[in-house]
């Protein structure tokens, strides 16, 4: 189809090479000789490649500009709070690929480091972008392409293990679906928050105490459009498959929809400042929780561990059963390979063995 359209657009008269004599060809210049052949397919392919690379570059640059303006947008907070903001002194981020970027901050009391991870829409690859957009409408397993930022704060100060999060109501079911730690929490509306946010937390006490006046002031109804969740957690994002993976690692995860609006970035700066100060308060023991609450949390964790232990035990049992079945099969195979006399002998032996067992049992009973 494309080729026919091309033919219509560029009707090139191609002289047949067969009609030329050797002498004529010898007399032609290189350009003339090249013109003898039909190059349209090559031109089309080349044009397509050039166009694709052009789109690739445009998407790539656009993604990069988004990342840069976001990172510069949160600079006020992070460079005030941290000794080092950026992956090195003069580099703000590392480009892992056209859609993955990461950045870093370190050098602050009570905090080991901050990892900032970007997962952007595949703008560089137009085809993937369009396909993902279409598929996301028809299936739930493909997500619509979007620009996600995850700010992961690793605190170094010690405080209790708990999960408590403020989650945007927009897409909160997905948040629960993709994050193991959120699916351990109870969801509740609260007057403390704008009505576009909910709490997902293990205990009411914790969520109330973590929502400081400052945080309340900084969150508005509109912030739910770009703040997906702010979560304090010690449990992993992925569902643990072994008990080792359940080992508590305290983290604060702020997941965002990438925004470059000035107002949003201002809110974000304030929210980040507030979160850092909450971490300080937790580490200094200014915010602390009732022992009953903490006991309850430990109990729910134990329940999860038990679940995993049961799964592991079941797996072990299954493996054992399989092995036994295999042994039996081998025995039967051996029997089949023996001559009839040998088979008889073996059967007799087995019968004797069984009898002995029975006798033993009877003796015990008596």
């Amino acid at each position, binding site marked *: 189809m494309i080729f026919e359209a091309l033919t219509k657009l560029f009707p090139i008269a191609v002289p047949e090479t067969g009609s030329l004599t050797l002498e004529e060809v010898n007399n032609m210049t290189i350009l003339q000789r090249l013109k003898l052949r039909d190059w349209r397919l090559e031109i089309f392919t080349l044009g397509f490649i050039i166009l694709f690379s052009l789109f690739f570059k445009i998407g790539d640059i656009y993604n990069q500009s988004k990342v840069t303006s976001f990172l510069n947008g949160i600079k006020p907070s992070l460079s005030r709070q941290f000794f080092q903001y950026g992956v090195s002194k003069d580099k703000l981020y590392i480009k892992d690929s056209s859609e993955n970027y990461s950045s870093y901050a370190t050098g602050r009391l009570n905090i080991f480091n901050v990892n900032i991870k970007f997962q952007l829409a595949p703008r560089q690859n137009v085809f993937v972008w369009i396909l993902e957009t279409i598929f996301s*409408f*028809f299936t739930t*397993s493909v997500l619509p392409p979007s620009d996600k930022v995850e700010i992961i704060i690793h605190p170094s100060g010690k405080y209790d293990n708990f999960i408590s999060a403020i989650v945007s*109501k*927009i*897409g*909160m*079911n997905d948040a*629960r*679906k*993709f*994050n*193991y*730690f*959120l*699916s*351990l*929490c*109870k*969801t509740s*509306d609260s007057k403390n928050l704008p*009505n*576009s946010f*909910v709490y997902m937390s293990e205990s009411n006490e914790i969520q109330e105490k973590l929502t400081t006046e400052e945080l309340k002031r900084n969150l508005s109804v509109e912030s739910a459009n770009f703040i997906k969740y702010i979560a304090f957690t010690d449990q*992993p*994002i*992925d*569902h643990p498959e072994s008990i080792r993976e359940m080992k508590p690692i305290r983290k604060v995860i702020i997941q965002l929809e990438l925004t470059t609006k000035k107002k949003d970035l201002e809110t974000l700066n304030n929210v980040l400042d507030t979160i850092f100060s909450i971490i300080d308060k937790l580490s200094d023991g200014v915010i602390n929780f009732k022992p009953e609450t903490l006991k309850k949390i430990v109990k*729910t964790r134990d329940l*999860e561990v038990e*679940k995993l232990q049961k799964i592991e035990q079941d797996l072990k049992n299954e493996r054992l059963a399989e092995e036994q079945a295999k042994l039996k099969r081998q025995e039967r195979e051996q029997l089949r390979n023996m001559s009839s006399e040998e088979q008889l002998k073996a059967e007799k032996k087995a019968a004797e063995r069984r009898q002995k067992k029975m006798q033993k049992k009877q003796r015990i009973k008596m």
Partner: protein
Amino acid sequence: MNSAVSNIILMLVMMQVAKKLNFEDPTILLYTRIFYISCQVATFLVFAIVRFRINSKNDLTTIKYVEPANPMSGQTEPRAVVTTVKEYDLQQVNSQIKGIFTSLAMMGFMHLYMKYTNPLVMQSVSGIKSALESNIVKIHLFGTPATGDLKRPFKQAPGILESLTGAAGGLQTDKQSVENAETAGAGGIKQD
């Protein structure tokens, strides 16, 4: 009238109508096609209006319910769903819109490839009828209050498998089961 009963009556009537029409005649065929397409467009418009209404209402009330386990789709345990009225409604509308596209694809195959024209007549009216009868349209287009049968989450008609096995399918909304499922740690499972 019950929607199932009226569906059957409609089907019988449309069958008679389809019998009377001579599909060999190109003008009749053209009009049938136009009729079918315009019915589908009308259905789509109804849903588009509903979508617009949902978005402008922006009802962020939280609703919770428990989805039953569905071994067919690899979901072994009941899963708690925590969502908002807006999101729930949008999901309902989107699945209806998806339905239009699937029926269009089916009809395209039946009509263009298999050369059947009868289903075109039947599907055109029944599509728009079922759209107007759906819960989500009742709430947002006709302004019926969302109580009783229209209380979210909507009750689902039992599937073929469930009605055969008599298993207790369906959504649960009672407080106890929601609370249990909500904190069961069913999230973050890698699907590949």
